[in-house]
């Protein structure tokens, strides 16, 4: 009998855990955003986070974009060569970067770099009673810690996405012209011909959502942290994994709605 029941128990536990988790995240989002009109936005913290998520992530996001664009160009060449449409490599690289890879890869790289940092920093503050100290000093920890991070991520993800996509297109161009020896005018002309403003806007809109997701999940997991150093590690891992999964899930939903 147990053999039959155990899988159902596990499914039930998983469903309850997921519903509880989503409920807690919804409450957390509400409490974070409700704190915004109650206080002035902490601009000092906001600017720190904008620098951390934006400027400090430039190299990692730029390198990701560069190599992705280069690989795309190369892979597209092998396929396009067969059917004789190598002139379509430029639009292939550009559309892939602008609509899909730019927003998603930027979000995933910033999750790895900044999301982990947000979760571990807030988690460490939680286990060392620094969050309690903020509350005792009548400082709303959501307003002080979460809101600047969430707003900075929502503001900077589109900027970093633009950079990632642009560098990716340049990477594709470098391979197209210098490695494959194809005509650089064709690459640029065809991009202009096939790419629409809507592609860029929708890609940027996606990145705003991704920024919100990664910052909300990462800070939420930081606040959930218990259990000392081991707990900080555990919840940081959860933050990165969950943020990445939610970003990919949201990517599918948004792509099906927007494009």
């Amino acid at each position: 009998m147990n053999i039959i029941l155990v899988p159902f128990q596990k499914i039930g536990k998983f469903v309850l855990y997921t519903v509880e988790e989503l409920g807690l995240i919804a409450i957390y989002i509400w409490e974070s955003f409700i704190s915004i009109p109650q206080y002035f936005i902490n601009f000092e913290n906001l600017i720190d986070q904008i620098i951390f998520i934006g400027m400090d992530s430039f190299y990692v996001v730029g390198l990701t974009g560069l190599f992705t664009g280069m690989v795309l160009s190369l892979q597209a060449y092998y396929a396009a060569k067969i059917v004789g449409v190598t002139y379509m490599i430029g639009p292939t690289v550009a559309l892939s970067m602008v609509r899909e890879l730019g927003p998603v890869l930027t979000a995933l790289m910033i999750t790895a770099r900044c999301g982990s940092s947000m979760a571990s920093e807030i988690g460490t503050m939680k286990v060392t009673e620094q969050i309690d100290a903020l509350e005792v000093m009548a400082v709303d920890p959501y307003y002080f810690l979460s809101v600047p991070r969430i707003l900075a991520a929502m503001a900077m993800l589109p900027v970093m996405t633009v950079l990632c996509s642009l560098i990716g297109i340049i990477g594709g161009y470098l391979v197209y012209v210098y490695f494959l020896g194809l005509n650089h005018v064709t690459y640029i002309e065809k991009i202009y011909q096939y790419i629409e403003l809507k592609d860029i806007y929708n890609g940027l809109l996606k990145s705003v959502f991704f920024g919100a997701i990664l910052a909300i999940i990462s800070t939420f997991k930081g606040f959930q942290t218990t259990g000392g150093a081991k707990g900080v590690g555990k919840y940081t891992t959860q933050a990165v994994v969950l943020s990445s999964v939610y970003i990919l899930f949201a990517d599918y939903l948004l792509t099906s709605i927007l494009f």
Partner: protein
Amino acid sequence: MIVLQGLSKSFSGVKVLDDLNIEFGEKQITVVMGRSGGGKSVMLKHIIGLMKPDSGKVLIGGIDINALKKKELNEIRKKFGMVFQDGALLDSLTVFENVAFPLRQHMKHSEKEIEDKVYSILADVGLNGQYNKMPSEISGGMRKRVGVARALILNPEIMLFDEPTTGLDPVMSDVINNLIISMHNKFKFTGIIISHDISGAFKTGDIIAMLYEGKIIESGTPEKFQNSSNPVVKQFISGTMEGPILI
């Protein structure tokens, strides 16, 4: 006046506070003693609204803080200062910035006024010249003193001390106890100290209470407490294994 009425709290079915009743007198220092893990910190977190009770009330000046909205609770919290066991200093800020933090959050002082206040309170707690150090660069005793300075900077009406001498050597413990007494004389706050440091409690406390099995089982002046006939209190003061306290 702080009053805890019928306060109960359980964690995973284990009752930590069990119909706890106590009143803390104004401008007095009350030391609540009890065993490690006996619910003292839980009681303190209820007083400041960091935890909500399963039942019972926490009345601060007649107001039940658990019935308040977040913003109203934060207004009440501005009356409090709290010194945490390990200081709970914000580790990304220097000593100066930690002490200045409540001022920057709640007051509209000029930078000069903030500097003057911070230097003055750091001098009061004996920490001249340590302004630019990070919390990780100073000793445990110094961290506690910075914690005291940060808690006092807004001149609170009520000060809570969570095991202020735990983890310190006897000399540093005495330094902290003397600091609490001198700061109390200067600022005239209502103090609540939770501790299991017997000598420190007798030195600093106007009233000493004993928390055992979730209830206050004894409360009174140090003399009354020392001469208590309660076998639990007697065993706790003598620090022996033999007695009614379950190990």
